[in-house]
């Protein structure tokens, strides 16, 4: 499936554009009241390439990943194409339990948005979505948490972080071949060695 025709291929699109492309409408999401201008930084070809996630699920997870790992002075989850890679993992690596947990997390997130705000998750304002996820995060890692929603959240969160932090953009100082070992260097010396041997 191509996003809004071939004309969009290769162009950077915003979440709003995704929404208006009708991909989420098909899943029953309301389109009004978004009020956001944050960008997904997706290529249209990326959107078209999801194989496990529905486009609606991909949009939700992309938003979740960006809230978890926003772009700051360093790359964010969208920059590292985390959800596209997660979608690939679901097709090539994940077992049935993980696949169910991904689905379960998204469903529970939507249900929670509906129950507390009477609208779809993506329709919520930025601060509300962030607060919603912060609350889920806190509850999921609370010592007494043993509920299923915490389980699926923790699994999805771990995957998102693992994918992002094993990406090239998130590892600017990675050195594949140090070529030498020094067991006692100052910070200045260390940084100079990193600079000399950067991947």
């Amino acid at each position, binding site marked *: 499936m191509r996003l809004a025709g071939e004309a969009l291929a290769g162009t950077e699109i915003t979440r709003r554009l995704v929404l208006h492309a009708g991909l989420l409408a098909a899943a029953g999401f309301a389109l009004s009241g978004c009020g956001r201008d944050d960008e997904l930084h997706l290529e249209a070809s990326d959107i078209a390439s999801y194989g496990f996630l529905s486009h609606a699920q991909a949009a939700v997870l992309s938003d979740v990943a960006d*809230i*978890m*790992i*926003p772009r*700051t002075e*360093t790359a964010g989850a969208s920059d590292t194409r985390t959800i596209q*890679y997660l979608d690939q*993992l679901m097709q*090539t*690596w*994940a*077992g*049935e*339990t*993980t696949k169910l947990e991904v689905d379960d997390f998204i469903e529970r997130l939507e249900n929670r948005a509906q129950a507390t705000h009477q609208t779809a998750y993506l329709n919520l304002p930025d601060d509300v979505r*962030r607060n919603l*996820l*912060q609350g889920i*995060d*806190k509850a*999921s*890692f609370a010592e007494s948490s043993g509920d299923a929603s915490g389980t699926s959240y*923790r699994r999805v*969160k*771990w*995957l*998102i*972080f*693992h*994918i*992002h*932090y*094993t*990406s*090239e953009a998130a*590892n600017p100082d*990675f050195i*594949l*071949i*140090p*070529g*030498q*070992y*020094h*067991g*006692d*260097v*100052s*910070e200045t*010396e*260390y940084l100079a*060695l*990193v600079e000399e041997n950067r*991947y």
Partner: protein
Amino acid sequence: MSTDFDAIVVGSGISGGWAAKELCEQGLKTLVLERGRHLDHPSPEYTDFQAPWDMEHRGMVPEIYDEQGRYRMLKRKGWTYRNEFIQFFVDEKDYPYTYPEDRPFMWTRGYQLGGRSLTWARQSYRWGPKDFEANAKDGHGIDWPIRYDDLAPWYDHVEAFAGISGAQNGLPDLPDGDFLKPWEMSCAEDYVASNINRSFADRHMIIGRCANLSEPREVHNALGRGRCQSRNYCMRGCSYGAYFSSLSATLPAAERTGNLTVIADAIVSEVILDPETQRATHVKVIDHHTKQERLYSARVIFLNASAIASTQILLNSSSEAAPNGLANASGQLGNYIMDHFGHAGASGTVPGLDDRYEFGRKPTGIYIPNYRHEREEGQDFDRGFGFQGGAQRTRTGHAGARQGIGKAAKSEIGEWQSWTFGIGMFGEMLPYQDNSLRLHPNKTDAWGIPLAHLDCHIRENERKMIRQAEIDAAELLRAGGCTNVESVRTPDDEHVMVGGKTHEMGGACMGHDPANSVLNKWNQTHDVANVFVTDGACMSSCGTANPSLTYMALTARAARHAVELLQEGLL
């Protein structure tokens, strides 16, 4: 292709590679049979040039393996369960073995040319005089028919070729050798080692001796082996050939003689005995793919399939003349299975070095050799233990497994932490006659070979060691100047799985007396003079130091002896 050779070597791992090299260099037309697939060196299966983002599944083992019940033991092992080198390990679902339900045994294998020499930890220590005297001294097991001095020149021989980095420490119980430049300790390791070495007369922390080329010599360069690049990705395979393996070193050395033939996918099921001459004449092979049987003949046969597999082959080589298995007149074949054991250790923080860093990833840590050979006052067990470990300085990892999201959580990632230090014990398991390997009476593998059945467990002597090692580990780190020291050990009522250290030994032990041992002082079976066993199966005790260097030395020594016997017309 000819099926007749001067020598056959079964297995191509650490000891098989050495047997091949020595026999070929002495002019014997030698066939190496490897049950696993062929691998080149460097191999397309090596993953040592992959950055984290290049790795398939970002380094995660496919979850389908869990669903299919595959690689269960490798997963229990933990640190080896990585997608980037899982291809070098065997799935017991495809290659089963059995054990009593309440006493699982961990048999970690690698079925490819080079065997486990691709994935070994490369720690290379000479055993000391006390290690070879221990059985005679305390009466456990069978007295070794050799002593350190018998093996010392062969340690020299194998160290020079393999390339072992290490310091000359001058410790009587851990002899020095012909070492390459030692790896530098990190500042934290140096700090802790200095404190420990000042605090104890008998406990020494040294840099680990490992088979990574810190400074290649001509003998290494001649085989295309290069200097270690401080990547510490050894288990992925090393395209530089910087750590010693059969693929990088011994097999190429054997090949350049023109005397080597290697056949992969060749599963040796048995050694065939001529009852009239009491000599082995053939090795029976089952093709991995076609399951067709073939015979290869030779004047001398070296079994180097691993402690378990070599013993299994001998047990499966029963005949009218040898009803309990080949070379089993003593009835001791399959007994005295051993392994090192851990299950106790400690960790702590190294203070005062937060402004110091390390660059590169050295391929070894530290070593504290066994200091408990003697029963000191208050020591209620025989033998002893050493420790291995090291210091590391890490950064805060990502928050994927803990609370925190958003900019705040992101900003915490990558912060340098203080140096931490960890050590874990390597205990000497006593040789127990009834820790055994037998052929399963009715279960066979896909090639019709009876499964190995392993019934082994640790006893009270080992439990006492674990308890003492926990105390010692904490004491050592505190003496080393560490703070926040925490110790751990496995509870007394929890099963300690033999095989967990991948140092299986015994099964065809060496000894003076044919009535109670399988091999003589030359690793030659007492019963069948042209069959030698020089892998872990031959070990009469297991010491505390990693055994591979000793396998190498024993193999080179036995190979030279076999050649001399052939030249004298005695085989």
